[in-house]
């Protein structure tokens, strides 16, 4: 899917000429340029990641002296042992896994159901409902009212404060809605004639045909929840509830803002957590999310494009 569209788009983008034979000079030059450019771009994106990876295997002194670039200096696995032995890291990690699983499940159920309903053109008040949803994209109550709301609902210091407020992302909802809208209505009609109710249509016809968009949405939601620290930062006051991102942020931003703290307070006696521990924590935190990508990737492009382009 991807390569095909790249091929057809390629020559046009390269010289504005009509599509020529594949072995034409212009095309070759373009592929060469394209390949080099993408490899460079790729390297640019990968570089910080590789550096952090190298730092995670290096000695603290070498990292501090700025010797580590893309290859570990003073190779050791001790830092990994230290971080892995840290109970707080793992309890935060466990929280993140739970929040992500529960949060993604809730978000998927709610978003899919709402998108399905909103995709029915015959639904009365449909535009109003969409309007309400879109309204929340542009306006919200603000930080303190939201905080007071969560507090009054008794959600503070519970998992729900993290997983419920963001359960429906309007952007995801709209992508999904347009995906459903573009599904051949004949399928539904046929199903209705065969005696399926709305629930049956949704479950037996629509869902099985929506794997790409569902996979994409799962990816969107789980990455968003996995990476999120702000909701947890706002609504959780107990360390045992913190997700790993908050733990990581405290470790990294906390250490490096010792300097900016100085600005406010003319100094802080905090020593920074050594950079290699930070690096190891970062690597361990992103591994699971890195693992999800390859599995979902094949749905990714079709999933997000399908809804938007057609129709």
């Amino acid at each position, binding site marked *: 899917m991807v390569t095909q569209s790249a091929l057809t788009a390629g020559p046009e983008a390269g010289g504005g000429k009509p599509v020529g034979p594949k072995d034409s000079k212009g095309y070759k030059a373009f592929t060469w340029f394209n390949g080099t450019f993408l490899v460079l771009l790729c390297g640019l994106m990968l570089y910080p990641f590789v550096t952090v990876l190298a730092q995670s295997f290096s000695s603290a002194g070498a990292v501090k002296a700025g010797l580590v670039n893309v290859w570990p200096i003073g190779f050791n696995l001790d830092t990994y042992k230290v971080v892995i032995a840290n109970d707080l890291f793992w309890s935060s990690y466990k929280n993140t896994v739970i929040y992500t699983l529960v949060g993604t499940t809730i978000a998927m159920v709610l978003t899919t159901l709402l998108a399905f309903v909103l995709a029915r053109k015959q639904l009365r008040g449909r535009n109003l409902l969409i309007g309400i949803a879109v309204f929340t994209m542009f306006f919200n109550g603000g930080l303190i009212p939201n905080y007071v709301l969560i507090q009054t609902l008794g959600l503070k210091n519970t998992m729900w404060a993290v997983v419920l407020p963001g359960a429906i992302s309007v952007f995801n909802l709209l992508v999904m809605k347009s995906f459903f809208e573009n599904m051949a209505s004949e399928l539904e009609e046929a199903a209705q004639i065969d005696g399926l109710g709305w629930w049956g249509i949704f479950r037996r016809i629509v869902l099985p045909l929506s794997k790409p968009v569902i996979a994409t949405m799962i990816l969107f939601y789980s990455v968003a929840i996995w990476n999120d620290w702000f909701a947890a930062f706002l609504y959780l006051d107990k360390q045992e509830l913190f997700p790993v991102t908050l733990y990581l942020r405290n470790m*990294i931003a906390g250490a490096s803002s010792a300097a900016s703290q100085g600005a406010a307070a*003319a100094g802080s006696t905090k020593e920074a957590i050594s950079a290699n521990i930070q690096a190891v924590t970062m690597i361990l935190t992103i591994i699971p999310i890195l693992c999800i990508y390859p599995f979902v990737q094949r749905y990714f492009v079709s999933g997000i494009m399908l809804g938007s382009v057609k129709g």
Partner: protein
Amino acid sequence: MARAGHLAGRRARSARAAGALTVVGALALAACGSGGGGSTDADGEATDLECSTESVADEQWKAAEPREFSLLWTDWADYPITDSWEFFDEIEKRTNVKLKLTNIPFSDHEEKRSLLISAGDAPQIIPLIYTGEEQQFAASGAVVPLSDYADYMPNFKKYTEEWDLVDMVDDLRQEDGKYYMTPGLHEVSVPMFSVIIRKDVFDEVGAPVPETWEDMQKGLELIKAKYPDSTPLADGFEGGAITNYAAHAFGTVAGWGFGDGAWWDEEAGEFVYAGTTDGYKDMLTYFNGLTEKGLLDTESFTAADSGGGTVTEKVASEKVFAASGGSWTVQEFATALDAAGVTDYELVQIAPPGGPAGQMVEPRNFWNGFMLTADAAKDENFCDLLHFTDWLYYNPEARELIQWGVEGTHYTKDAEGKYTLNPEYTLKQLNLNPSGTIDLKKDLGFANDVLTGSTESIELKTSYNTPAYVEYIEAIQETRTPRDPMPPHPLDEAELEQSSLLGTPLKDTVDTATLAFILGQRDLSEWDDYVSGLEGQGLSGYMDLINGAYERANS
């Protein structure tokens, strides 16, 4: 580099969030109305509270009945709080007070603190408040005017008088004549940041340890002659640190210490804007001179600070031989030098050099203190709460407990007042008794970052510091004079808002111009243009505001 940029972006974002919070918080609280506590003219009068016991300075205070008070606890990632910390048990044993904690991560603790206070959900005791930070909360009545209850804080009273800090405490008064936070008190004024030099290199080129900025320049020139590739002086804090501690020597304020920019002109008897003073120009001229001679590492003035990382690298690769930092930076530099294989180096944190204005340093007798939220005043045991916080922050035995643990159990003190940890205990952060197995800070919660260091007598300050730092303290005490604090000029709520509207762009202009002048991007002959630029931004209106507040406070 990518990481630093990323963090800087985040920081900028959280700074914006903090700004937004402040505004929203002020609005929300303006609606809530009155501040807590009684209203009085003189401190401590007309506010009779019921107390369970008496509190006397320097004596152990203990509540008659078990009490529970809530406290905002900032968590550092490397010293995570645990339930088993003996620290809290010991406090409960001594005072009958159980602390109920609200945990917030250090990375964004200011934002969260604003949020909690603004939403009326904050615990009673808010520690880690630096002077000035209470203003926004005081103006909206979210915190208790502690000056009304000074009589219930005997330790605080005693040590402000004994250490001659009464005038400085008076400077904390807001427009209504009350102060809303009490700071940690330091018996001696020691600047946290100053220059750390490679003394061996200064010796090698025959330069003495700089006593003035002039000495410093001579030393740097000699070093440059010997190491032509080097840019011997660096800051690592975007110039904020070095201009802060250097400004006092030039008779002005700058960098981190710029504050609201008000500088007291003794002769004129009024405030002038520090960024337009001759002292400020002299300072810029001096640093610009260093840049022109290639003595200043200009990169360290522009790179986003990531805790001085890049400067540490340059120190390790011997491109920089003098840089800003605190006592902990010495250790950082040493680690980097060791890793780079440099031997026989000697790093010394020197007292901030003097200048045209004399051997001056900033007055830094105040460190972080605490506020009490307005809700605390409604607590039926409010008096006990005051007694407790007074004990916790200002009682010498409490301070000793926080820093060192329990005498006999964790440490012993000999006849000369030397503290020694018992063999099984260690305080790795300060490299004390490294062979011990139980860490005083990590395992037991003593020497924690929330309460330690706030109030310190000379004795306590020297008890845990390295001999090198004790020398630094002594050098400061013997050879430097703390600048007189500025006269108070408290603004009321409307003025505060106006001053932040006017003052923020002014300060931005000063910050930008300061760097441009120092780095030679702007010629100092344009000084007058710069000053008239400030005038055009409403400088006179801003100064009228401050001088008006000063006159009101003194009438």
